[in-house]
């Protein structure tokens, strides 16, 4: 649920990075954190296990700039991808304004991607959020690895509603900002429609 504060002239929305375990969600946030100036972003909070897997969530507050004098701020969250953290994923999804699905392009993770998309839809249903109306971007990550499924094949299997698709190598930052931009755009366009 986006928050509009006319007095402070700011708009804050929530974007959640969703996807299977080890897909690169946290890596996206780390890259954004490392490549934005400290004046435009807050702390990157990560709640991890010892092995650097997300245990509950990561969150990064980001100030993208202004539109018509309004500060456009986003709270970027990641969910924990491991299957058994289902309850946490559901909690983080509450009040979401847009979702980035980070798919793992490696052939052996294809089923994990599909399972995670189903899990996303199931959780959205439980909140009565409509997937059809949700600002949603598909990121095909880890394009640098040798054992990847072709982008065309992945699109055929994973595209659900004509969403924007970004190919990425999150560890090197390739496609990371583009993904965020696509998601931010869809969120703002949706809000524009709703606020008339």
């Amino acid at each position, binding site marked *: 649920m986006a*928050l509009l504060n006319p007095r402070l002239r700011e708009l804050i929305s929530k974007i959640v990075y969703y996807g299977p375990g080890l897909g690169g969600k946290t890596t996206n946030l780390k890259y954004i954190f490392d490549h934005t100036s400290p004046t435009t972003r*807050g702390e990157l909070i990560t709640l991890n296990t010892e092995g650097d897997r997300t245990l509950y969530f990561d*969150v990064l507050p980001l100030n993208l700039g202004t*539109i018509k004098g309004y500060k456009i701020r986003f709270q970027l969250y990641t969910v924990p991808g491991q299957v058994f953290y289902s309850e946490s994923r559901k909690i983080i999804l509450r*009040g979401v*304004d847009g979702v980035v699905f980070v798919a793992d392009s490696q052939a052996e993770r294809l089923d994990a991607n599909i399972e995670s998309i189903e899990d996303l839809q199931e959780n959205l249903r439980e909140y009565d959020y409509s997937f059809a109306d949700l600002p949603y971007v598909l990121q095909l990550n880890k394009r640098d690895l040798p054992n990847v499924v072709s982008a065309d094949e992945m699109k055929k299997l994973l595209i659900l509603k004509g969403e924007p698709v970004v190919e990425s190598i999150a560890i090197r930052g390739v496609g990371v900002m583009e993904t965020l931009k696509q998601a931010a755009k869809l969120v703002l366009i949706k809000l524009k429609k*709703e*606020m008339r």
Partner: protein
Amino acid sequence: MSYLILYGEEYEEIKKILSELKEETGARVALIVEKNGQPIAFSGEMDGVDTTSLGSLVAGNVAATEGLARLLGEQGFALMFNEGQNENLHINLIERKFILAVLFDKRTSLGLVRLRAKNASVKLEKVFTKLEAKMEKEHRKMGEKESPFEDISEDDIEKLFK
């Protein structure tokens, strides 16, 4: 509802209640977050601590505790208290939609914070009720002359990423 408008009048009222709460108790910070983690307002200053992050973590904490309550067949826990060596955190829910968190140290007591937080919550609840009614009435429109979104273009959005 996909967005909440924090109208100026109510925003000022919320800030005032928070600042009174802070003054009355000698707490360091009083803040309100929406249950989904969106920061609403705060009063007080903390060197080097990002209040937005504090809000996200408080909301995450409340959500996890509520999950725990569900698992135990409880309705929820209305109140949470974290005691640290120097800082203490008192958290309670308002209307089940908003979270009031008060950060305080040894200069004040839990009893006082709890009492005042309770009083502040009653006032805040009224403001939030008013806010919701206003949003209904104004058909969720801005209520102020210009909406930032009336005529934003893809170009404006592109520029954010320059």
